[in-house]
């Protein structure tokens, strides 16, 4: 099982007179730096703007890494581990939902029986530490400081 960076891509979202959205995408060479990719996206936006009646409303630059020979999946994705972290700002939280959480991490004793995840389990603790020590944040840029809760949810398809 090996991971390969496929290549970066640039995408533009366009909007027409009726409000309908359309997409335009191009791929970029694999060893292109993010700065060059973003610069290319801005240049492309200008050229597309001259060539389409639609209005460009957003652009994105994406890097994708894909497993060359992925291991077969196991378990069921409907069992989700939901981790809620406090940030340094009151009222701002980071919520992470991990699909297919291993059921053996669900508490089988105590008041959290069947709901809470066992945060003392080494794998769970390692994941929590990985989130707290990494560059991660919520969609508004607030970074997590401490775990508030970790629970098990069933999210049907």
């Amino acid at each position, binding site marked *: 099982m090996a991971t390969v960076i496929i290549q970066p891509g640039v995408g533009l979202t366009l909007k027409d007179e009726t409000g309908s959205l359309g997409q335009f995408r191009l791929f970029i060479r694999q060893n292109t730096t993010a700065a060059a990719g*973003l610069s290319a996206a*801005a240049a492309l936006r200008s050229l597309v703007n001259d060539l*389409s009646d639609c209005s460009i409303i957003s652009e994105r630059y994406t*890097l994708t890494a894909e497993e060359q020979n992925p291991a077969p*999946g196991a378990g069921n*994705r409907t069992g989700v581990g939901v981790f809620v972290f406090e940030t340094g700002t009151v009222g701002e939280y980071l919520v992470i939902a991990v699909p297919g959480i291993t059921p053996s991490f669900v508490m089988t004793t105590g008041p959290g029986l069947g709901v809470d995840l066992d945060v003392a389990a080494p794998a*769970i603790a390692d994941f929590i530490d990985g989130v707290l020590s990494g560059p991660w944040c919520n969609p508004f840029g607030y970074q997590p400081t401490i775990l508030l809760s970790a629970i098990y949810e069933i999210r049907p398809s």
Partner: protein
Amino acid sequence: MAFVERPTASLTYILIDETGSRSPFSLDVPQTTLADAAIIAAGLLRPLIEQITDCAILSYSLTYSSFDDAPAPATPGSRVERKGMFSFRTAAGKTVTYQLPGIPDGVVLQSGRIDDDNLAVAAFTNAIVQAGAIFCDSNGVDLTSLKEAYERYRRTTRKMLPSERAPD
């Protein structure tokens, strides 16, 4: 009208379970995080995720995005279903086609072919195939020349239906 960066870049893992069903799992990083650093961090987090989920990780992608905070209105008569289809030859001898929504009347000839002598069309295609251009196909192969360009109408999907359809 100005493009504004979102405060964060989004990292999305795609997981697959034993039934073949896929599910995403997203995190964000501050927009100022360098892409290389974010990808490295994603790689470090991956085995920690694999320890706590029964699913397998198929891929992860990092997206930096920005949006126009005051977009100019679209040209009257514009329709995303009216596509400009641009086919390019690749260095591997294959062809790849990209579609551009809302191609205007002014660049389409009577035959339905897109006028490659039009200044805006030429600037667009040259930016993609010129020496030193960084664009490529999905396999990372360079795009070398324009093969054909034409107008094509695609069907309207449910999402493209006008939002105001009731009579006034």
